[in-house]
């Protein structure tokens, strides 16, 4: 393997990793942008998405097969189901807390995370679940580099989801309402925007994207676990901060940057894969200290 081969291979790994980070980071950023809540439970939503997708796929595989049609159908269904779960959580746990002190709603989010995490742990007895699909390792081979079709489809699907989200935010009336609420919620209320409905919609979209990432990660890694959401929740937050939290293009950019940094970072001999989480968190901390607004974030002027 030459340096060139390693570079291409890590580029592909980084893009895949970055796709997962991006999809989760989008939910973080959207929710933060609209109600300034750091939704700690978001990583767990991703994990629940993987499990819901897996359950649906095991029902559907008899009808649609366990290849692309089945996976796609179960991904879409999982997105819808988990989207509603997000709305439900928002309705039960976060809406009563909107006017409460910041600390209270943060603690509520930690509580929601504990519920999801331990609920799935109890349901699966803490075991790894094999996510079997009919996909194989076929793909394009160029010299030492092998890129599977699965990898290509995943990057393409992420790109498609991001493009759809971008159109939704920039072109529809709902997207416009979301952008307006993130600027001034009270003014929106006076203008007759149903703020609660739009907040619910934001949770729906964010949770659905996380579920999509969860299903894709299950398909890609071949196994799912109740613990899978914890680290990716932290990483996706890092990605959201890299891009500038609250900014949607920022979350997209941040996810890809973090995925690539991590893929290449672990190639540095003295870092190694056992330190890769430390690498990402270290990056987050340095970034928060030196450039908390991120790459695309706006500098916020706080008024008193």
């Amino acid at each position: 393997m030459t340096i060139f081969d390693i570079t291409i291979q890590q580029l592909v790994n980084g893009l895949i990793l970055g796709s997962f980070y991006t999809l989760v980071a989008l939910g973080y950023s959207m929710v933060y942008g609209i109600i300034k809540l750091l939704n700690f439970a978001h990583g767990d939503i991703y994990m629940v998405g993987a499990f819901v997708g897996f359950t649906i796929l095991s029902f559907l595989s008899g009808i649609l097969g366990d290849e692309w049609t089945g996976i796609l159908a179960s991904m879409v269904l999982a997105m819808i189901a988990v989207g509603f779960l997000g709305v439900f959580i928002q309705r039960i746990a976060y809406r009563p807390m909107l006017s409460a002190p910041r600390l209270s709603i943060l603690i509520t989010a930690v509580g929601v995370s504990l519920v999801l995490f331990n609920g799935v742990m109890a349901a699966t007895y803490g075991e790894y679940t094999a996510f079997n699909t009919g996909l194989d390792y076929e793909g394009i081979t160029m010299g030492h580099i092998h890129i599977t079709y699965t990898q290509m489809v995943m990057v393409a699907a992420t790109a498609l989801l991001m493009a759809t989200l971008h159109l939704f935010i920039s072109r529809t009336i709902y997207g416009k309402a979301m952008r307006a609420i993130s600027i001034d919620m009270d003014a929106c209320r006076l203008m007759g925007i149903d703020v609660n409905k739009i907040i619910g919609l934001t949770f729906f979209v964010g949770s659905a994207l996380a579920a999509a990432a969860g299903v894709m990660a299950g398909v890609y890694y071949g196994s799912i676990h109740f613990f899978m959401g914890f680290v990716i929740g932290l990483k996706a937050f890092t990605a959201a901060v890299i891009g500038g939290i609250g900014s949607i293009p920022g979350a997209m950019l941040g996810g890809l940057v973090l995925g690539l940094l991590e893929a290449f970072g672990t190639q540095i001999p003295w870092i190694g894969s056992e330190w890769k989480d430390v690498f990402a968190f270290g990056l987050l901390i340095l970034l928060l200290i030196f450039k908390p607004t991120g790459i695309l974030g706006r500098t916020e002027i706080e008024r008193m």
Partner: protein
Amino acid sequence: MTNHSPPTAIAVKKPGLEERLMSLLDDKKRRYPTYAVLIAGTLLVPFISDNYILEILANSFFYIVLCLGLNIVVGFAGLLDLGYAAFFAVGAYTTGILTSHYGWNFWLTIPAALVFSIMAGMIIGGPTLRLRSDYLAIVTLGFGEITRIAARNLKDISGGPSGLIGISRPSFFGLELNQIQHYYYAFFILVLLAIFVSYRLQHSRLGRAWQYVREDEDAAEAMGINRVAIKLYAYVIGAVFAGIAGCFFAAKMTAISPDSFQFMQSATILMAVVLGGMGKIPGMVVGALALVLFPEVFREIGSMRMLVFGVMLVTMMIFRPQGIWPERRN
């Protein structure tokens, strides 16, 4: 903590349990006898109970110290710390490494742990306390994970994933501390110290500054309070509480591993603080006791414990954010 639930009815004729509890600790004439009875009762427990009960109580005392420490950060200063177990790991590993690798005396490791916890508090708090409170929460979560991963990966000093075993027992004037009774009293002394320090801090100039910053950061700063400095004090003092508790934890268990310092540990301590009522010292005692006793009483739920805690955390925040200890009314 500002209370955002609607004000409760004022006209209460007969004093309820809350009022009677409060009057025991607030009334000057009743306060000291109450304390004396509580302390004497606790000191007598080992003479009448078996090792199982002592084990649970010693464990509760240990959590009371951790809760009081986290209370300084979360309750007094209003900063959410999700990586508190990292500080407790610093203390436990300092004792573990110094006694097993370098043959130090246990009592000498306490000042070392003190220094290391202060350093850890400053390293984590120093650069991050300028950030907004919600960023701080996630940074502490990240630091907690970094500490645990480092403990797992630095195999030569920390023993790697299996941790350190055979940490030597401390001796106290020739008496080797190897009975549960010894640790019961050791942790009880720590609890008394922690309560005393917390109480003195709460009513000090620093305590009032914390309260001010917690309620209105901008106004506090306009009044000349250096908010970053006083937040750092809260952080470092909280770290010291956990570090010293960690030393005794290592001595009691004689074995420590990175698994003792997972995120769930931090979440559990936070749960006890919220349950007891953030910022209230008697509340911390109640919260920690409830936290340790709950799984012992409801043995059947076993692994569902954290699930129940999660539901309780959300329910508490929505319906009773001031915690189970009654609110001081004046």
